[in-house]
């Protein structure tokens, strides 16, 4: 019996050996992995009260740490909160970290490798940890102008970039929110603000699903720029090509008929040149190009412009990949070619597509970060412009630019015309049903030496409101950037 008791004891000891092993694994061996887990809120809470670096725009802080109350030495404050909420995100005890606060956390918190010696210094001098500041490429005047151009209560986004560098000069969307309320350190107030915010449709709480980087919208006719590039690249079409332009297009075996765009002068001709088809945004010429070239050619050109692709590491913000669907039937391909059906693009995607045309076919990686500075103002990171991919040839880009210029000078994009400047542009009206559309304008100026590209989208508007809110607003941004 005593032998069996000893054996039982050994069994118990064996169980405890396993426990000792398991504890060692969790607390030492696997601890780093657990600490790095994105669900782990402890890391956020750990530096929640630290003095984080500021996020700067044009030299002034849009997010900064200010002295807090007794329980927390520092408190995050957002200046012009609604204007910049889509970029900064929030740094909240209850809801975690989003936006640039999350993407640049290592720099802002001061834990990035480049800040190693600063940390050592802080350790010995006993200072509160202070993170690096992050300066953005945003131009505060353009940002404010763009934001105010979207009427309150209207869902929409505006993206302004420098096509030569990929730098984002303004990126706004409405509806927006006040991150101060979600990062107030008062849990019940944070919850109330958050719960109110998530009820607002399209609010830019999460850049990967809403706002300029995340909202996946039907691009409508702006997608015709992809068809045009694909057509010219195929060699089957050139500037003199005559395109079929029937009022409707029918498909074998089905009832559906694809109509031409009702708003312009398409109905006046049965055939069209590229220039005319783009100027009036006729549907059937591009549908026929797509049917002629096939799905593969259109999809290939779409991905060269950034559809179904990544947008580079420079952006830092989370974003959604724009979508050009696959395995389309005949009618589906025709509808996709005019940016309907299941084609989806973010406002940022349309902006980088247009910028690639403006930049002789070279697509620059969209970039938000101008510089990262250590607490002693030493520059520790300064992103250089990075070419993301070649979207098309300089010749094709030049040809498309010429036609886009005529869209503004002679076609339905005339609202964007700026006196004394050649503006290239393309409008789009993606039908949502019930007479409502996503109304787009994308373009750049000056056409011969592009300094700025502007992409405007207003969601859920009728034809009239769409026309008023897109091209004319783009014009005001062109003027503001070029005349400053």
């Amino acid at each position, binding site marked *: 019996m005593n*032998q*069996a008791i000893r054996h039982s004891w050994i069994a118990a000891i064996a169980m405890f050996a396993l426990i000792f092993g398991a*504890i060692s694994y969790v607390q030492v061996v696997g601890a780093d992995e657990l600490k790095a887990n994105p669900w782990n809120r402890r890391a956020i809470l750990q530096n929640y009260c630290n003095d984080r670096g500021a996020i700067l725009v044009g030299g002034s802080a849009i997010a900064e740490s200010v002295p807090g109350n007794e329980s927390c030495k520092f408190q995050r404050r957002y200046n012009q909160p609604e204007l910049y909420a889509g970029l900064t995100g929030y740094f909240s005890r209850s809801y975690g970290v989003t936006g640039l606060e999350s993407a640049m956390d290592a720099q802002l918190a001061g834990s990035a490798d480049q800040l190693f010696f600063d940390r050592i210094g802080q350790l010995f001098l006993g200072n509160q940890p202070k993170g690096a500041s992050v300066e953005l490429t945003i131009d505060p005047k353009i940002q404010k102008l763009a934001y105010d151009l979207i009427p309150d209560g209207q869902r929409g986004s505006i993206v302004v970039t420098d096509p030569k560098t990929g730098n984002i000069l303004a990126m706004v969307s409405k509806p927006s929110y006040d991150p101060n309320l979600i990062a107030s350190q008062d849990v019940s107030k944070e919850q109330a603000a958050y719960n109110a915010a998530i009820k607002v449709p399209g609010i830019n709480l999460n850049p990967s699903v809403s706002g300029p980087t995340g909202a996946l919208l039907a691009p409508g006719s702006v997608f015709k720029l992809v068809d045009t590039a694909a057509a010219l690249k195929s060699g089957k079409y050139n500037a003199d090509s005559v395109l079929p332009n029937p009022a409707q297009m029918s498909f074998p075996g089905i009832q559906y008929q694809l109509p031409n765009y009702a708003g312009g002068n398409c109905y006046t001709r049965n055939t069209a040149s590229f220039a005319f088809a783009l100027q009036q945004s006729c549907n059937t010429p591009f549908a026929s190009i797509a049917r002629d070239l096939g799905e593969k050619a259109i999809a290939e050109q779409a991905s060269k412009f950034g559809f179904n692709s990544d947008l580079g590491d420079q952006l830092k913000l989370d974003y959604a990949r724009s979508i050009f669907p696959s395995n389309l039937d005949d009618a589906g391909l025709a509808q996709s070619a005019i940016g309907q059906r299941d084609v989806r693009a973010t406002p940022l995607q349309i902006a980088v597509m247009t910028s690639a045309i403006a930049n002789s076919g070279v697509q620059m990686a969209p970039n938000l970060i101008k510089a990262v500075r250590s607490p002693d103002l030493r520059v520790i990171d300064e992103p250089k412009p990075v070419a993301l991919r070649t979207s098309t040839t300089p010749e094709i880009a030049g040809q498309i630019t010429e036609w886009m210029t005529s869209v503004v000078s002679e076609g339905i994009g005339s609202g964007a015309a700026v006196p004394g400047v050649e503006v290239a542009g393309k409008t789009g009206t993606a039908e949502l049903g019930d007479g409502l559309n996503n109304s787009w304008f994308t373009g750049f100026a000056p056409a011969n030496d592009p300094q700025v590209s502007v992409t405007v989208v207003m969601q859920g508007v009728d034809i009239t409101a769409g026309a008023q809110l897109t091209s004319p607003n783009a014009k005001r941004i062109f003027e503001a950037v070029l005349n400053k």
Partner: protein
Amino acid sequence: MSHADTMPKPRRNVELLLLVLALSVSIGANALISIDEQTSLDTDFWFQSSLLAVASLVFHVVLRLRAKYADPVILPLVVALNGLGLAMIHRLDAPGDDTGNNQLRWTVIAMAVAIAVIWFLKDHRVLRRFTYISLAVSALLLILPLVPGISAGEILGARVWIRLGPMTFQPGEVAKITLAIFFAGYLSSNRDLIMLAGRKIGPMQFPRFKDMGPMITAWLVSIGVLIFQRDLGSSVLFFGLFIVMIYVATSRISWVVIGLTLILGGGFVASKVFSHVGLRIDSWLNAFTEEVFGRSPGGSGQIVEGLFGMASGGLVGTGLGQGRPNLVPFANSDMIIASFGEELGLIGLFAIVMMYLLLFTRGFRAALGTRDAFGKLLACGLSFAVALQCFVVIGGVTRLIPLTGLTTPFLAAGGSSLLANWIIVGLLLMISHTARGPVDTSPMQPGRTPEAQKPAPVTAAGSRQDRNTTQTLPDAPTEAVKHL
């Protein structure tokens, strides 16, 4: 070996010294927390500390009077564990919560009951007379939570609580003890029969089918607890308790093989048939998948948060009151081990686990030392139950095995668990008293007890083994009556 060496020593002064050490650990922990929470050392602190100290010293005095040869290490170990638990529960109390004081009340009640057990029972062998009453009581205790009117309903997925006025109580905790008494009584009476009959297959001797009765009963009880009370932890505990006791009674490894086969088979079927078991296993295996993490109820959020806490504790811990164990659900009960891991680190948690190891080792020591089969079985069963319970809980928290709803003995918040475990301590102290005390000089009746015929095992602690060779018959029921 001198005569003085073989004389039994009470060792009560050693116990007093260790008790002072244990009290200073637990009161010190409480003081650290009080200082950290800026409540300073208020009247609450002094009241709680002195109550714990007085209760422990009273227990000590009772041992001096009634069981002066009891193991001197057991009481200090348990006081230290209970005191640390009190400190942690107090630390985790949100403002307005009263879990800490409630736990203190239960500690005093549990110690009083354990003292009463020692005072009135005088000798554990009396319990043998209650073998079948214990079975009846066990059955009653296990059925109570299912009886409408008394049952507190389903709490957190399990039906293991009953309502007693304003309080809830978990009768299953006490059933652990009564079942151990029944198994010990039954097996000590019938072990010869079970042991000798049977068929030999290979190296193992398998029991006759009709001797499998108690095994089947225990299995059915365990499965019943699993099905009707949905309490996986208790089910495993009851069955483990029985396997160890029948193994110790018969020294047949075949029982262990049969038992493990039954429990693994039952467990496998249960995991397929009952969703609550399947969910436990799923949230153990797939703890880090998004779907399982967010699932409620039955998700892995609790385990994963606990792992995050332990990882953040690392080797030395954050320090008492410095971590964030409150992020873990049930931080003061099911997950209290994770709370200790976070704040005391690997080193502190090892110390706590080591205390459990010493505790059950002293229990096994009492089982080896005592001369009656009933006492051996009871001490061994109860000690193993404590070890198994620790293994199931800590293994669950560290994701070594699926997490079940068992409580950590002495540490976790919960009155029923404290009460049951203190009664176990009382019984172990009593058994160790007879094990270490002077031998009864009743007439020798050689050759009746099997273990008395074996040569005494050679160990370093020779004094108690020597007494085995006196070949008394302490197992005889008459002796227990004589003591009364």
